[in-house]
């Protein structure tokens, strides 16, 4: 009963939290009134728009998402330096771009979106397309000698962690 009332009031609890944080950051200075108004907005907006987003995300681990985000930022910095070196040093004729097909174990659309976004944000790989029934992801790699290795790295490094975040 309490649980149902909670989900009636807050259809998307994490969206409420996110909207409140964004509101406080937009104000650029913190005060209690701002936080309360942000929370009010965070309750009204998901409640009003819940018709267009009926499904609640089943399980979501905020703490694991945080460590995942830190890992992705580290990877972005590392990959940026590698790709910058490729751009400067490898001539066009020697460049080995490749398509990689990643068979997906993830099912939730949110999880696949986060995975595709992570792949694109990491320089050197761009996620291009999803197969028509959503079982594999098409990724373009700028320069690689070992396409299977890149596929396995994406699967073990990102997808395995996302499976633990979106349960």
């Amino acid at each position, binding site marked *: 009963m309490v649980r149902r009332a909670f989900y009636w009031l807050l259809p998307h609890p994490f969206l409420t939290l996110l909207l409140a944080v*964004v509101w406080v*950051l*937009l104000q*650029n200075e913190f005060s209690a009134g701002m936080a309360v108004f942000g929370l009010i907005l965070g309750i009204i907006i998901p409640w009003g728009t819940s018709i267009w987003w009926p499904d609640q995300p089943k399980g979501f681990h905020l703490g694991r998402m945080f460590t995942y985000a830190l890992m992705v930022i580290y990877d*972005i*910095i590392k990959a*940026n330096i590698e*790709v*910058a070196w490729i*751009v*400067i040093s490898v001539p*066009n004729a020697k*460049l080995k*771009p490749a*398509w990689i*097909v990643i*068979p997906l174990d993830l099912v939730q659309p949110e999880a696949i979106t986060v995975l*595709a*976004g992570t792949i*694109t*944000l990491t*320089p*050197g790989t*761009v*996620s*291009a*397309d*999803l*197969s*028509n*029934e*959503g*079982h*594999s992801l*098409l990724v*373009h790699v*700028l320069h690689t000698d070992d396409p299977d290795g890149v596929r396995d790295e994406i699967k073990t490094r990102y997808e395995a962690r996302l499976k633990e975040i979106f349960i």
Partner: protein
Amino acid sequence: MSGQILATYASALSLLIGSGFITVGVIGLLKFNDPMTRLHAPTKVGTIGIGMLLLASMLHSFAIGSSSMHELLIMSFLFVTAPVSANFIAKVNIHRRTCETPPAPPRDDTWSTLNSPEAEITPAPLDPVKEPQTNV
């Protein structure tokens, strides 16, 4: 005010690093000759290039005493929207066949961009049992 001087140097350094990465991104955009490889250059500009410039802006705002957190928001909105535009450019490339045609996916029929709507409009053969009912 050694802290202020340190912050000024740090913001100058991150401005240099950021603009360096943006320069490399532009070189990549000009150098590569294939639309798909060219797409890789802007992802670099969008992540670390802009990120370092925003970090410089944040450090500067702390150095002059009025702290600003808007940069975090700009960064997070960029991180959310940049993959969408990259994905759309890649889809246009696949759709117009301006790049190598990708290999077929292992489990499904085809990639969703190559999935032509004509194939779905062509009617399936009618069920022989139901056919008299539709005529009546």
